[in-house]
Structure formats: C-alpha cells, structure tokens
C-alpha cells in the first residue's frame, strides 16, 4: 500500500461530487484489504495506466445507485437501474477518476490516463483487483453509502 494513492482519490471525490449536485460528503473509513473484495449492487470499473497502473472500483447498492443517479439528473425519477441511470453513474466514475489523474499529477505521479467505465451489477459477487493490496475508502454522500476500492501498483 502506498499512502500517496489515498489523497488524490479523496481529493478527486471531494472535488467532483459537489459539482454533481451533492451537498454532504463524509469520509467514514479507510481500510486496507486483500486483492479480492465482495460486493452486492454495482461496481464501476475504471482502468488506470501511466507511471502507476491498476484499477479503481466505485461501488454502492442498486437502490443507492438509483438514488445517486436521480440526484445527478436533478431529481428525475429513477425506478430501475436502467441504461440512463447506468450512464449517469458511469459518468460520475469517469469524472472522479479523470480528476484523480490531475490530483496524482499534483503529487508528482504524472502521465496517468483512464479507460472508459464498465459497470458490473450483481446481488452478490467477488471482484479481484490486479494489486496485492486494495485501499478501501468509504464515504457517505447525502446519506448514500459509497465505497471506493483503489488497486494501484
């Protein structure tokens, strides 16, 4: 685990999420996990490549993802995690990770770029990231639990 990987992600999340119409962002936990994590709901998968490389996953329950997408779309009703909600959520992941590249650049980790987001949806699944250790950063965003898994090496 490299502590230099935490702050750029924290800063990116804190900078982008308010731009999407959210008021309160509370960091509730930082933990070190193994390379495999269990999930229930959705995971946004974004690859990073540059002087460091790996994957960032952003996860939440399906209900949370629907609430999150609704808020991003100025309160539009979201009754299922349909293609519009998936698009909104994946754009959030894209914006957070793109901003994280800038934040990494600010701490001397330069030249990072990201891949387009892919969304995994499951009631119960396991994700194995390419790093031996994964940093989990948990947030509560306007009452919505969001987990960010950082697997960079």
């Amino acid at each position, binding site marked *: 685990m490299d502590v230099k990987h935490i702050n750029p992600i924290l800063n990116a999340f804190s900078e982008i999420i308010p731009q999407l119409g959210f008021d309160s962002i509370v960091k509730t936990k930082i933990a070190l996990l193994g390379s495999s994590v269990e999930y229930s709901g959705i995971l946004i998968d974004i*690859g990073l490549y540059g002087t460091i490389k790996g994957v960032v996953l952003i996860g939440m329950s399906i209900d949370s993802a629907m609430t999150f997408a609704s808020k991003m779309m100025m309160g539009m009703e979201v009754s299922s995690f349909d293609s519009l909600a998936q698009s909104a959520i994946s754009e959030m992941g894209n*914006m957070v990770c793109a901003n994280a590249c*800038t934040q990494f650049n600010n701490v001397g980790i330069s030249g990072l770029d990201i891949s387009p987001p892919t969304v995994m949806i499951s009631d119960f699944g396991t994700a194995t990231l*390419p790093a031996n250790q994964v940093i989990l950063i948990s947030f509560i965003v306007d009452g919505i639990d969001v987990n960010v898994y950082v697997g960079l090496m």
Partner: protein
Amino acid sequence: MSGYKVMIVDDSAFSRTMIAESLRQIGCEVVGEADCIDSLVEIYANCQPDLVTMDLIMPGTDGFECSTALRLYDQNAKIILVSSMKDEQTEAEARRVGIVGYVQKPLDQEILLGIINNIMSPDTLYLQILDRGIELFKESLAQNLTRMTKCPVTFTPTSTDNQQFISQGITAIIGIIGHYSGTMILDLSIDVAEKCVSSLLNRPSKDRDETLAMVAELANIVAGVACSMLNKLDKTYSLRVAPPSVFSSSSAEIASPSLNIHSYCVETGFGCIFFGIGFKKGSTLWM
C-alpha cells in the same frame, strides 16, 4: 466556408463579439451565447450547436467546470477551449474533461478554421481501429484459444439493445488507454475456465483463485498482443493495457454505457466464451 453551428461561452461581451465575428468570417453560424454556468445547459439544449467555444476563466466558475456540466448533459458535446493561457497543466486538465480542441487568444481565423474542420471531419484513424482493430483483437483471442483448446474457434456476433450483457460466471475487464481508449471484456463459465486451466497445466485447477488468475492472464495476453499489433499498424494509437480486474458471480450483468461494444459468442472446444471490444472516439486536436 464551414457552415457549422457554434455556441460561444464567455463572460466577456467584448470577447463574445470578437469570437462571433471570427466565426462568421470563416462561415460558421453563431446559434447561442452563454456568459455563466447557470444558463449554459439550457442554452445548449435550445440551440443544439455542432461545436462550443469555451472561455477558461469566468467569475465563480471556469471552462473545465462548464465543460463538465455540458458533457454531463451531452457526452458527445464538442468543446473547443479558447483562452489566452496555454500551458501543460491546462492542456492536461482540458483533455481529461473531454475538451476536443484548444485555441489561443487572440484568435487566428485560419487556425480556428483548421481545428474546426479537423474536429468535424470523419476520423479515419478511428474508423480504422473499428475495422482492422477489432479484427486484430479477434485474431489475438483466436490464436490463444486455439493453442489452448487445440480446436479452431468460431466467432458469432451477438446483438444487444442497450450494451448490457449477462455474465456466465467469470468476467475479466481490461481497460485500454491511448489515442483512443477502450474496453475489452472476456466472460466465460467456471466450467469452461476450469477446462482451460486443465489444458494449460495438464492438471485440474487447484482452486478458484488459480482459475481466476488464468482468466486474468488470458485477457491480459489477448489485449497486449492485439494492442502491440495495432501500435505497429500505426504508432499514433499508442495503446496501453491496464491490468485486468476479474469478477465472479453466479448472477451478474455487465454494462458499458459509454461504449459501443462489438460482442461475439466464441465457440471453442471447451464451450462458449463471450468476447466484447469497444473503442471510444475522442481524439483531441490542439493548435
């Protein structure tokens, strides 16, 4: 004469007048103007421009925040940053928020016309990656699977309405980064994955971790070989492969909302493997 519809975002009325005049001189039609972030999306939605020129520094906001708001509304919005500032950090941030062009003030009409024509003309390199690139990915997968299963493989295109797929059990996702970014998806059942491990190692898989590691390695090799072949075809691609993440679940769906994934059912001697590959258009032009 270009004939494109352009919206101008700039807090300075004088700047808007100057930019509008330059645009008219090169044959563009100015269909909307915004001076702040509040009215931005509404004006964009009403005037539906082909292109947007974006100021960098505005009171209470900046061109990056405004571009982010616009691209949240329309991820295909084509935005040209127009600023007197031009440095490496600004360029990098502009690329990351999806701005497709960058011109420096004072505007040179010839340069502006060149960049607009470049942005609006068909992207032949992108068309090539869709045509030849996807074939190279299939070729790379076929070579590796044939070696593994000792049987030829066949590709059958699968169709989907909304870029959403049902997982068969194990999914490897590879992010592709470069002149065009993209995603490669490999999805197979646990049974097929275990047969692949047995074939490779001449013994049954020790445990689930070993099976998942094989799927990750296969995906990594397929994408790595295909990207190397594409880079040899045209070094402008500069494609790189992010390490794979692997998901396993008895019931999962895979969605790729920002990409048109070309998907195939690959019939192998061991069973069907789902293969998906897509690239995002979005090369950036800087003058």
